Structure formats: structure tokens, C-alpha cells
């Protein structure tokens, strides 16, 4: 046993025994109140709730396909929609202020008017998702997202058919 403890400090008899609470070491104190962990946990629960709400309101079926408008519930005209289709070949008109194009999916076609220049890798023959409102047969888009197809080909400048292949695209030939 460790005997080099000061006798006066701890008391040598029951009368002089020091019963006052001893100061807790900082390490023990931290263990007793894990505030950082509790705060992180509360933030996590709050964020999880927000993410879950987003999932239920927005993420399930991110978009309607062009041929689903009016056919599938949640895809009616007059409300905010996200519509997916393939940009028709040669349909893009850009006058500097607005961009007009048509997009098709499943045999149906839809004219789109978009204020501004779509970002991303927007071009004809690629699938896009447009956010906006459908009014009188024209889809007024305020956001265009380019849906990346799932093929990865090397961009080889020496390949002669490269341009033709890009222009035809896999999407337009379907």
C-alpha cells in the first residue's frame, strides 16, 4: 500500500477524519458531463429530422418523365414539377435572355422555356431534369439539371467518328 500520504491531511482518527468532498479531477468531471457529445447528438437528431422531411417531401421520385404528365399522380399541370426528358436534336434556341427547347420521353414531347443559360454540360440529345411550372402546354423552367447518363467514354480527339458519335449520342438514337 501507498503509505507516503500526509497523515494530517487525511486524519489519523475518526474525529479528525476529513469528510469534505474532494475536488474532482478535470478528467473525471469531463466524463460526468459529456456536453460536446450531447450537443452533437441533439444536432444530429435535428438534422436527421430535416433530412427525413426532405426525403418524404422531395426525394421520393425526384421527377416525372415527360410521358407521365397528367398520367401519374403528382405529375399534374399547374403545380411545381420536375420533369425529365431528352433534349430534342436541333431544338435549342438561345436569344441571350431565354433558352427554348423541346424535350421528349416515351414518345411524348414538351416545349420548355428557361430564363437564362442552363449550367452544367447542357446540350442536345442528353437527358435533363427541369424544375418549373407547366402552364398552357409550355413548361416554364427556372432550373435545369443535366442528368448524367451512365456511360464513360474516352474523349479522344484523334478519333474521326468522335464528333458524329457525340452529335448522334446514345440518347437521340433511341
Amino acid at each position, binding site marked *: 500500500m501507498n*503509505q507516503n500520504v500526509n497523515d494530517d491531511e*487525511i486524519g489519523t482518527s475518526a474525529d479528525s477524519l476529513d469528510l469534505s468532498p474532494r475536488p474532482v479531477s478535470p478528467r473525471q468531471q469531463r466524463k460526468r458531463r459529456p456536453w460536446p457529445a450531447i450537443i452533437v447528438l441533439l444536432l444530429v437528431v435535428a438534422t436527421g429530422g430535416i433530412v427525413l422531411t426532405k426525403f418524404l417531401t422531395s426525394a421520393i421520385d425526384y421527377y416525372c418523365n415527360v410521358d407521365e404528365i397528367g398520367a401519374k399522380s403528382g405529375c399534374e399541370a399547374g403545380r411545381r414539377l420536375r420533369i425529365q426528358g431528352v433534349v430534342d436534336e436541333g431544338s435549342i434556341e438561345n436569344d441571350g435572355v431565354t433558352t427554348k427547347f423541346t424535350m421528349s420521353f416515351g414518345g411524348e414531347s414538351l416545349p420548355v422555356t428557361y430564363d437564362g443559360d442552363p449550367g452544367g454540360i447542357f446540350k442536345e440529345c442528353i437527358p435533363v431534369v427541369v424544375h418549373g411550372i407547366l402552364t398552357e402546354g409550355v413548361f416554364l423552367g427556372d432550373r435545369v*439539371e443535366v442528368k*448524367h447518363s451512365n456511360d464513360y467514354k474516352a*474523349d479522344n480527339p484523334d478519333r474521326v467518328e468522335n464528333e458524329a458519335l457525340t452529335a448522334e449520342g446514345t440518347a437521340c438514337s433511341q
Partner: protein
Amino acid sequence: MNTSTSLDAPPRDRVTGTQFTRGLGILVLAGMVLLIVLGLFVSPADVNQGESVRIMYAHVPGAWLAYLAFVITGISSAAYLWKRTRSLTWDRIAGASAEVGVLFMGISLITGSLWGRITWGTYWTWDARLTTTAFLFVTYIGYLAVRGLGGTHQQRARRSAVLALLAVLEIPLVHFSVELWNTLHQEASVAGRGTDVEMDGLMLFTLFLGVIVFTLMYVWLVLHRQRSLALEDMLDDSGLDNALTARRAEASGVAR
């Protein structure tokens, strides 16, 4: 207990590195250099995405390794909960793996966000894949917070193990979200339903190299972190031992 260990020469059981992890670390560094050379310079640009396709070599391995890390957290947690294999080492492997998993998931989210800006035209959107991934990320941050709630090592191990077994169920939801719902995110490129991979040969090779390098890095990180967690637990225990020794000294003082 109060043995004075000199700081400049820690004993062998007080360090986290071994001959094996040192060799592994060198392998990871060499592999990373090769991955950077192949990913940034040798592999071709994509016909549609251009140079941004190179983000894939960090994004996809990051996501896969996060899945792997969380699955290993789940397995280790099950091993802890099963009486025959109950050992705090399993608990520490689970914790270490979850930490590394959160790190890889973060890498995947950040690189994916940058790629999304270039390709889709937006950093973030609430489609099913992105939303479920965010939920998975947040869940494991919560798991790590639960590990930090205090109590004995056994309490920590038991409550975090139960949580880990629930959290691992989210992984199939994240992986198959692109097939279950309409998503902006593309379907799985390599481990997808249709097994014909639509990818250039060198791109695919670079991607697999990325997965291998990230896997080795994961092993290195988990081994070290697991050992440093063991040292942390030892320090906690020694703090308790010191307190017990002090109380015993008082008791013997009273008895005299």
C-alpha cells in the same frame, strides 16, 4: 501503477505502429502516388463530362469504403454483443471503423458535390440517393456522439453496438435508392444490376486502383485508431486505479 515511463522511448505496447503497419503505410503512399498520376494525368477525359470525370476516382472509392467501414462496424458490434466473442477490442474496432467511415463518406459527399456543380449544374439537390446518403452520414455522426456519452467501457460498447446494428440497415437503402426511385444521381456504374460496364478500360482500371488504395488506407487508419482507442481506455482505467489506490490509502489510514 505509478511507474515512470520515459517519454522518448515508449514501451512496445504503448505505440500504435508495428512493422506491418509501417510497410502498409509505405504501400498506401506509393499507391496514392500511382492513383494521382493515373487519375489526373494518364487516364482520358470523358466525352461528355470532360476533365470532371477524374473526380470519380475519389468519389466512388470513398463511397464504397464508407459502406465497407460501416458494415465492419456492424460485424464488430455483433461480435461484441455475442457472449462467446465479447471483447472490448471488437467495440474499439467498431468505433475506429465508424470514424474512418464518416471520413470517407465526407470525402464522397464533398467530391460528389463538386462533380454535381460541374455536371448537373448544382452542388446539392434532395434526390433519393443524395438524401439517403446524407441521412447515413448524419446517423454515423450520431453513433460517434453516442460513443462519447460516457459511462463505463462496457456501457459504451453495449449501447453503441445496438445502434450500429440498426444503422447498418440503412446501407442497402442508400445503395439501391437509385433503382427504387427516380433520382438525378445515375445508377451504379460498376456494381449495378446490368453487369455490362459502360466504361473505358483505363478509366475502369484507375477506378479499381482507387478502390484498392482506399481499402489499404482504411486498414491502416483503423489499425492505428483502434490501438489509440485502446490506449485511451487504458488511460481511463489507470485513472480509476489511481483513485482506488488513493482511497485504499485513506482507508488504511483510518484503520490504524
